[in-house]
């Protein structure tokens, strides 16, 4: 079962330097064959939202949902069930300072 982890920061969060480094988490989940793919994402200032209406391509500067939280990264993981996915997500350093959305893939 595949789950997408959306790694979100909380506005004004305060973490000691080094505490946010996900390197150890990435290495561990890669080694265990859990993490399939993932990366950091550029901040919302670099985001463009695309819509097509009446054949015209409409662009908006910024993400489609304006929230205080910023999606800072994503990871695609393969787990037996939700409990396992929750356990993997809870070990991500960002879980302690921001939040992680666990989305099951449709397929």
């Amino acid at each position: 079962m595949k789950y997408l982890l959306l790694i979100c920061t909380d506005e004004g969060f305060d973490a000691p330097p080094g505490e946010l480094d996900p390197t150890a988490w990435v290495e561990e989940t890669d080694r265990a064959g859990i993490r399939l793919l993932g990366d950091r994402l550029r901040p919302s200032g670099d985001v463009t939202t695309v819509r097509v209406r009446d054949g015209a391509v409409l662009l908006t500067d910024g993400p489609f949902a304006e929230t205080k939280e910023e999606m800072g990264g994503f990871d695609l993981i393969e787990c037996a069930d939700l409990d396992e996915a929750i356990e993997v997500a809870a070990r991500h350093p960002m879980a302690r300072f921001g939040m992680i959305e666990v989305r099951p893939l449709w397929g």
Partner: protein
Amino acid sequence: MSPATTARAAVADAWQGEWSRIVGALIRHTGDWDLAEECAQDAFTRALERWPLDGVPARPGAWLMTTARNRAVDRLRRATVEAAKLRELAAAPLPSLAAGEVDVQDDRLRLIFTCCHPALSDEARVALTLRTVAGLGTGEIARAFLVSERTMGQRLFRAKSKIRHARIPFRVPPREELPARLDGVLRVLYLLFNEGYAATAGPVPVRADLTGEAIRLARLLAGLLPDEPEVGGLLALLLLQNARSAARTDAAGDFVPLADQDRSRWDAARIAEGVAVLDRALGRRRPGAYQVQAAVAACHATAPGPEETDWRQIALLYGELARWAPGPVVELNRAVAVAMAEGPAAGLALLAPLTAAGTLDGYHLLPATRADLLRRLGRHREAALAYREALTLATSDTDRRYLAARLETATQSAADGGRARPAG
């Protein structure tokens, strides 16, 4: 009794005892919650048809389990589900039905923990527990929660859909996660009980169906997890609170406060059972919030009258409870106990910081408590103001009637210029 009556009683009995076992076993083998419920339902319907004619089988639970399983095999065969699943189900050993057998891997326990999974909302957990563990119909649950059957149906559908699509596992959590997950289960049962007991909305003060189901489920859980003292604590708490229910309202359906209740109408057998369950739990020397709350309830339930109640002990217990489950409502209750032990002025002093903190804004019991303490101090004008504030916040009809009566008395006493003696 006629064979038909005997058969109907046997089916009703089996429903109480076997429903969750059958649903749990079918979910474990098929992973399909709807199929499991429908096949269990079919088995009971079939029992209602057959048992009056054929007689009640020697082992009703086994008969129902076999019937439900055969029905599931049929349904899956017709749906031409992959052969492997079908073979597994047809060959699956039927769960042992020996009476009193306790197994941490009991299907009913799996069912309870899955229904109360923390990834589901409280509302969804309560509804799902009533549907699949207690075996109540969607319509019954909807009526108990004063929502339309359609709304409740959607709530159940969404919960089951999440279990399936997010793949919430059907299992009892591993030992290291058990305490935290058990807390979630106990909270669902307590929510259920309170929904029936406190009646947050509507004209009926106690909905016995919900309190009864909560107690039945707590009993089941206590039987399945005999080594978890907090389960015993919860069961004791529910029994002790429920024992007072007949005296909580008068003939007109109005709320009667604890101090004015006719204690001869309390259920002595329930109290004795609750105290015994609590003693066993406390004997394990792993206290917790439910055991402490049950101890408070036991102080009330075993006192011959309000004056003989050990309020000092209750105030201490609320202090202890604040360690396990800190919160403004616990502080409010502690203030009430202190007021009884040391006088209304001492209680009022504890209420002041609570009012100032504002965390209980909108909760009618804060001004109602302040009003009562002011009344006992003979400060009727202030008491009337506080009763009026409480009245604007109360939501249940019985609370409102009680507060309106108190407001009238306080207003009258204030108009008498405080000549009336403090009520004590």
